[in-house]
């Protein structure tokens, strides 16, 4: 799996290859987005449950962050390596790894968001007869929204980067292109894979910024008056 250097004379990008393999590239981009989407989606669902439970039962928060913190600290390559003997070269292995890295980021931000709801707002809502579920859905979550979206932004961009590493266990979207290019000394694949994966992450990041601005006009208004 290692490389031996001998690529002199090869152009950085072979346009003919690019033209002939447009379909493959598009499908790898889609696979990259799909792998990221599934991971962030499942991660968000798990995080929502754990975070809301942690807010309601404060004692659970420390163990939850401790456990997800350890999962976050385990190197991704190590985790994928460890999962292969258990779950094989499957999409399941890739997703278990990817999901486990989103949890800490998302849970922290959801809890921080709900915590940022001013006590008097909560009390006013309770005094008006809001029950816990309605309080959560109509008061706490909307106020926490910017913080939660900020967490989603970090988790999504991080996951896009991590997906490239899942190429080691056969999935991996654009990472697959990088890996194949490195293994066969074909610069075009390496360049296309790395440039597109960086672009995908950067565009997603920018989309979150624009989206947050559009969804939270009050934040901009406040910034303008301040």
């Amino acid at each position, binding site marked *: 799996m290692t490389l031996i250097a*001998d690529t002199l004379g090869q152009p950085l990008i072979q346009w003919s290859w690019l033209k002939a393999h447009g379909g493959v590239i598009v499908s790898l981009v889609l696979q990259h987005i799909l792998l990221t989407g599934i991971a962030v989606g499942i991660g968000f669902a798990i995080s929502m449950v754990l975070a809301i439970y942690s807010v309601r039962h404060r004692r659970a928060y*420390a163990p939850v962050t401790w456990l997800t913190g350890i999962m976050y600290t385990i*190197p991704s390559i190590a985790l994928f*390596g460890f999962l292969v003997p258990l779950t094989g070269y499957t999409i399941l292995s890739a997703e278990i790894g990817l999901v486990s890295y989103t949890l800490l980021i998302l849970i922290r*931000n959801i809890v921080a968001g709900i915590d940022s709801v001013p006590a008097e707002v909560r009390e006013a809502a309770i005094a008006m007869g809001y029950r816990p579920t309605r309080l959560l859905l109509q008061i706490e979550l909307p106020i926490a929204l910017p913080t939660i979206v900020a*967490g989603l932004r*970090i988790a999504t961009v991080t996951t896009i980067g991590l997906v490239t590493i899942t190429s080691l266990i056969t999935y991996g979207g654009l990472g697959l292109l990088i*890996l194949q290019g490195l293994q066969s000394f074909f610069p075009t694949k390496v360049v296309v894979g790395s440039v597109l994966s*960086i672009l995908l992450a950067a565009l997603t990041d920018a989309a979150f910024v624009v989206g947050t601005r559009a969804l*939270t006009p009050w934040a901009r208004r406040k910034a303008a008056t301040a």
Partner: protein
Amino acid sequence: MFFSNLFHWFTTAAHWHGTGGIPNRLWEHFQLCVIAVGAAAIVAVPLGLVFGHLRRGAFAAATVVNVGRALPSFAILAIAVISLNFGIGFWPIWLALFVLAMPPMFTNTVTGIHGVRPDVIESARGMGMRPRKILLEVELPLAASLIIAGVRTSAVQVIATAPLGALIAWGGLGRFIIDGLAIQDYAQVAGGAILVALFSIAAELGFGLLEQRLTPGGRRRSFAPGARRPDVELEQVIKPSTVGT
């Protein structure tokens, strides 16, 4: 079955000797990480000190973190390999880790210096301290724990990413994982994975202790691996006000 293989892998005497032995791979891994993080710190921390001291770093710090996050380390490694004309071994992986290590240290340094309260700096100035002295004797010590927190984040990321070097003929603990995957020796893969994980958790704990020692008395708090101080990078983005910038 799998676990007995794993146990067997760790207890085989041959795995503890020579170039391909665990001690040598660990040593290679350690060297690479120290050189990468050290070089990145030499660049990132002074830059962060200057930006922070001039009070111009908030935007730069947020930008650096966001750009850093959008650069997948595998892509950086690939670009390093290509730009060194399919260079293999130490330099491409070093370059990738160097780039990876800089953002957290820069951002934490800037944020740490920014976080020093203006009245503290006022009183230092009132006592006749020059800007240089304020930076080195007031701001730097007060920011020290946060700077170390940045070094910790960088170090853990670098340790975790260094195994990718095995793909391009560098040694280190990644060899066990990459070679194991290639020959379907999963005990070796898991053994390497455990070693990398232990190494990175050890770095996390070690820097955590250092960080705690450097935290000025009143702000000291107990340290547990999971319940760590929220990363500055998270805090940075958590504030809705910085999301739009």
